[in-house]
């Protein structure tokens, strides 16, 4: 494959698509599949064939359309119409309405804030291309970034471009990507690795899954570019076994990319060679930690080890290793194609670009969104998210999963970026955003996260192994109205201990949900402790006592 071939394939694909007057996009990401979009797609195909419409109309399975709550979703690309909650029985109505007035009862308002306010870079192809066909990705300039990088840029230039963009790691901590790439590039050694962390372990986050299910080639391309920039020739995608569809699509995409020659030896007729293998996670949240992830790829238990040395100099099989997460890699191809300056034009001063969030919890529009960094929480929750259902009061939004915190209403106007979130005690995390209303007890929420951390703690270091259990016990005592007067002080004491002395990020950040809820929702705690009552009425024991 050379660059000319790439353009050729894109041209052929484009004209092929233009040959269809109507393209019906059916969401076949996991969310809609579980509402029956698979059957819907089949029914549509059958009906089209039966009616002999297949010359001018075609059905295409696409990745996530975003608004998971309204699934199964369907979009008519050319007409710009969205249908929601579509059933098999709606098929004939939809086909009959093609080219005419849309089916009113199924219409999903496209001009609502949910769609309007989004800026899509990572998700630009989600819901538009068939994730199981590499040609469609190529038709959308796919692999153009890789071609550009390997044929016209030196590795140093690629890294400079990434640095210039201000891209920061989307996995949680927000480490500058350019800097990370530089360290690996500069590390000595002939063998280096690139790892894509797709072990999206935060409960309540499904950004990476959606990207892998909807646009896997984007991630592959990003990894290849990283491989070129850092001098690695082997990549690994470490993906959760709990995402079978994502695994299947990534494997298929890798197969296609190899067959097309955009992976393998002498990519685009250059001396650059790059291969990618898939490794399955096996249900361990701690494997999101770099060193644990490496251990897991090596076939061992995912127990983190102290850093330094960092994976950049001492990683997979002791070789320099670059680890970025799915969304970070997914940002790379457009960044290379359009230039770091373009990317840096989006977002805030210190947080560039866009961020994908998984909106969930007590919110009207649950689903996947992508907004520029710096968008306010209020805009995300109330404008894009459509606010709280059933007229309930907003209480908090949880970001960053078990390592993050609960942000109260007083910070709704805060811009969402790495530093602002850190300032209020939370973290960006991978992008899970869970909205809670007045019916949630924040002690119970803290207990939920601590239970998670306790069962996900690898057990290597004592503060995390025993600390999570002790904190969990205290929180159980509080929600069960069995706490003593010293429990709150002990809770804070243990949180401080874990934060300061745990070995890895899991233990160091596990107290965050407790600390933020203690800070912003202390009344929830005090009511349990002093009045033996759950303010939100959520805790069972509390209800029974009252």
């Amino acid at each position, binding site marked *: 494959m050379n660059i000319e071939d790439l353009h050729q394939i894109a041209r052929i694909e484009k004209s092929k698509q233009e040959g269809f007057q109507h393209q019906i996009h059916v969401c076949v990401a996991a969310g809609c599949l579980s509402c029956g979009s698979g059957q819907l797609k089949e029914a549509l195909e059958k009906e089209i064939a039966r009616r002999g419409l297949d010359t001018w109309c075609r059905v295409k399975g696409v990745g996530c359309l975003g608004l998971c709550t309204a699934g199964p979703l369907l979009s008519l690309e050319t007409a710009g119409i969205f249908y929601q909650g579509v059933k098999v029985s709606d098929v004939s109505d939809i086909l009959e309405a093609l080219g005419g007035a849309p089916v009113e009862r199924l219409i999903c308002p496209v001009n609502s804030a949910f769609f309007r306010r989004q800026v899509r870079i990572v998700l630009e192809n989600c819901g538009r291309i068939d994730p199981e066909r590499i040609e469609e990705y190529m038709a959308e300039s796919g692999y153009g970034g890789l071609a550009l990088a390997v044929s016209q840029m030196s590795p140093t230039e690629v890294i400079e471009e990434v640095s210039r963009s201000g891209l920061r790691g989307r996995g949680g901590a927000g480490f500058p990507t350019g800097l990370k790439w530089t360290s690996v590039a500069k590390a*000595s050694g002939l063998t280096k690795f690139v790892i894509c962390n797709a072990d999206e372990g935060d409960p309540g986050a499904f950004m990476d899954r959606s990207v892998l299910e909807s646009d896997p080639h984007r991630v592959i391309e990003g990894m290849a570019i990283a491989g070129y920039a850092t001098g690695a020739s082997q990549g690994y995608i470490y993906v959760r076994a709990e995402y079978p569809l994502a695994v299947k699509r990534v494997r298929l995409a890798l197969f296609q990319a190899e067959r097309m020659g955009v992976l393998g030896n002498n990519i685009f007729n250059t001396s650059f060679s790059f291969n990618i293998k898939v490794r399955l996670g096996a249900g*361990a949240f*701690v494997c999101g930690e770099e*060193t644990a992830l490496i*251990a897991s790829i090596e076939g*061992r*238990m995912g*127990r983190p*080890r*102290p850093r330094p*040395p960092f994976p950049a*100099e*001492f990683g997979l099989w*002791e070789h320099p290793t670059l680890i970025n997460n799915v969304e970070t890699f997914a940002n790379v191809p457009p960044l290379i194609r359009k230039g770091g300056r373009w990317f840096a034009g989006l977002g805030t001063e210190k947080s560039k670009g866009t961020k994908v969030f998984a909106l969930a919890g007590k919110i009207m529009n649950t689903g996947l969104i992508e907004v520029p960094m710096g968008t306010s929480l209020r805009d995300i929750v109330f404008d894009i998210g459509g606010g709280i259902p059933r007229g309930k009061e907003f209480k908090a939004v949880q970001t960053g999963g078990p390592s993050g915190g609960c942000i109260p209403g007083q910070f709704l106007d805060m811009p969402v970026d790495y530093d602002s979130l850190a300032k209020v005690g939370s973290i960006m995390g991978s992008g899970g955003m869970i909205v809670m209303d007045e019916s949630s007890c924040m002690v119970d929420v803290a207990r939920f996260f601590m239970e998670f951390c*306790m*069962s*996900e*703690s*690898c*057990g*290597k*270091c*004592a*503060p995390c*192994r*025993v*600390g*999570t*259990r*002790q904190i969990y*016990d205290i929180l159980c005592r509080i929600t069960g109205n069995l706490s003593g007067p010293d429990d709150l002080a*002990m809770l804070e*004491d*243990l949180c401080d*201990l874990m934060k*300061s*002395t*745990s*070995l890895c990020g899991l233990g160091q950040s596990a107290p965050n949900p407790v600390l933020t809820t203690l800070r912003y929702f202390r009344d929830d705690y005090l009511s349990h402790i002093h009045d033996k009552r759950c303010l939100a009425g959520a805790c069972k024991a509390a209800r029974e006592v009252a």
Partner: protein
Amino acid sequence: MKIHPRKNVRSDLNPSRLLTFRIDERVVSAHEDESILSVARQNGISIPTLCHLDGLSERGACRLCIVEVKGVARLLPSCVTFPRQDMEIITASERVVSYRKKILELLFTERNHVCAVCVSNGHCELQNLAVELGISHVRYPYLYPRLAVDASHSRFSVDHNRCVLCLRCVRVCDEIEGAHTWDIMGRGITSRVITDLNQPWGSSETCTGCGKCVQVCPTGALSEKGKSVAEMIKRRQFLPYLQMMRGRQDESWPK
């Protein structure tokens, strides 16, 4: 993960440089590939440790050897931290000592450490640390797990109640004896050391019966049969010799 600075991490920096820096206001000098812990000990400054044992790979897991470094916000485990020129290290600040105590207290709550009836009473590293740090009571509630004793081996027994999960047994069995009979199952608070497929030690197919695990165990978790209360005194003289004589280049199964 075996981090062996001399062999792996800094091989490119050969020959290692001599640095001068400060530990507890004292100016010391050392090679850049000597851990802060080892430099401190050479200079007569004691830093509490539990998972560290000379002759075994480092784990950095017990977190008792944490020290403060001026200008660094995080506390660093001295067993796996290496000095830099002009670094200023404080080994026993009030903050560090209070954390060490709390960690130790957590260990005491984790399992049923009843010193009075323990074979290692009086010869126990955990007990000694508690004495050294002045722990007279434990603030946190005891968890009282129900753990069994495995006395199926003809010469040794393992009492999980007294295990602190330092994994010295696992390391010595793998790194020195080369049998890898021991490992650790499960995760988090439910982790437990096991032999082979979590079977009674006496039925292990791989155990050579060498007893090194027993000798490196810091507490009474592993002991020789026939030893009664307070009689189990561990012998570790063999470790440096064996390490030298069997010195494996790299571990096929690093921690």
